[in-house]
């Protein structure tokens, strides 16, 4: 009886959360045209540009280092197995395929969610606590359009770019490893790498990065808008923005990968 009640309430809460997220996503998406340059409202585009710098440009060093390390680690790990079979060239394939399909989008999403997802929720949460969001609503200005949409648009533009950079840095790290271990020069490495790249993998990686960007921006903002109470609620919202978006990113990753696997096997 009691257990059922707890489970029921939990399910209802999660469903309500997903419902809220969907409505917010929809209003955010329909407001995107008003943020675009030329056709949008004045001032919005520059807000989006500022967000792009904060989400993308500032995150680039971290994405580069994390991805380079990831690429190097993957190369070492696979080399230690594959060298036993004399199949060192496969190391290149593994790094290239793993990053374009999977690790590039994923590592980028984790970095962006830690840096920007938490920042979104902290910023919006503070605006809720100081009644700034209420002030916007009383001015007949839609907080979704003014606050969320520039962030969302910026994420959609910047996260795919970061993902490409991430894969590029990882592949370069792979090249470094091959040079150090096998004296393979960069041009030769790149020729092998180019053979390993498939358009399908790139499309899959970019699709993932767009979906991840949506999750991070929407969940981050949602956690911010849901803040009630004082400053410590803002801190909690930043934590739960990262936790929830990371969880949803991995879940979405599983979903998209499965879709591609099923579609590809037909």
């Amino acid at each position, binding site marked *: 009886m009691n257990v059922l009640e707890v489970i029921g309430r939990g399910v209802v809460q999660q469903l309500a959360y997903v419902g809220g997220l969907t409505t917010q996503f929809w209003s955010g998406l329909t407001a995107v045209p008003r943020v675009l340059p030329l056709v949008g*409202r*004045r*001032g919005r585009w520059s807000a989006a540009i500022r967000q792009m710098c904060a989400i993308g440009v500032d995150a680039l060093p971290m994405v580069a280092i994390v991805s380079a390390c990831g690429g190097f680690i993957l190369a070492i790990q696979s080399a230690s197995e594959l060298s036993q079979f004399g199949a060192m060239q496969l190391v290149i394939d593994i790094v290239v395929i793993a990053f374009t399909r999977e690790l590039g989008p994923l590592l980028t999403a984790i970095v962006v969610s830690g840096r920007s997802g938490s920042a979104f929720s902290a*910023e919006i949460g*503070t*605006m809720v606590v*100081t*009644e*700034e969001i*209420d*002030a916007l*609503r*009383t*001015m*007949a*200005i839609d907080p979704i359009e*003014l606050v969320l949409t520039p962030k969302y648009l910026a994420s959609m533009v910047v996260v795919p770019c970061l993902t490409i950079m991430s894969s590029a840095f990882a592949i370069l790290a792979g090249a470094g490893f091959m040079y150090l271990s096998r004296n393979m020069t960069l041009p030769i490495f790149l020729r092998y790498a180019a053979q390993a790249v498939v358009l399908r993998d790139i499309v899959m990686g970019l699709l993932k990065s767009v979906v991840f960007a949506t999750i991070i921006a929407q969940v981050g903002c949602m956690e911010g808008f849901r803040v009630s109470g004082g400053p410590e609620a803002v801190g909690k919202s930043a934590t739960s923005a990262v936790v929830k978006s990371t969880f949803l990113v991995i879940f979405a990753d599983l979903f998209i990968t499965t879709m591609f696997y099923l579609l590809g096997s037909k």
Partner: protein
Amino acid sequence: MADPIISVRDLVVSYGGRRVLDGVNLDIQQGEVLALLGGSGSGKSTMLRHIIGLERPDSGRICVQGVDINNCSARELKALRRDMGVSFQGSALFSSMTVEENVQLPLRELTSLADPVIEIMTYIKLAAVGLGDAGKLFPQELSGGMKKRAAVARATALDPEILIFDEPSAGLDPIVAAELDELILFLKRAFHMTVLIVTHEMASAFRIADRVAMLYKGSLIAVEDKESFRASNDPRIRQFLDRIPERIAESESVQRRIRELAGVTGATE
């Protein structure tokens, strides 16, 4: 009498089972200044938040310009809010924008005025509250009283029909507070604005208000013109007007609780 511009009917609000507003009725006429008085925690800000339509009441009806604010289309609500200028108790200035940008925001978002016009209007609004030179500062760089005034300037930016101020003069020095009073009187006279103002400053309330309303424990115990309010015999109003302390700390219940906490029971005393 003409239809009231704001009408509140049987407004009931509770937070977590505690009644904060308990059946409040209030009519405000077009062009009048109504001062809302009441002790700290009596529900004044709560009442304003409901009149603006930021929160839904448990029951009751609030009509602004004849439109039920909790039961209207998004478009009507938007039109209503465009006609309302609100300054919050905590200022609620946008901390990522300068004072100037704060005042400009509603002008940029809701009008299609050209930039030079917006700049002139912003300067006029800021100068009217004595912040002509502070436009380039960020809210964090302002004093508490300056923030209040910037919030008032932002509320008046669109020349709304209804102004709602939550304690705009708290923390202002007497001279600036008096200037704010004059500004409100000017807005009322020149633009026939309706003003609903929460204040703790009796002198200010009696200077600017046409009528005074007093909230006491969630109910309006008086809504009358200021002369009869000032002459009121109601002990709760007299206490407020004559600044008679409550002496809560000396009351029987508080003393008993202190003894309990100290571990001294009534029997051993």
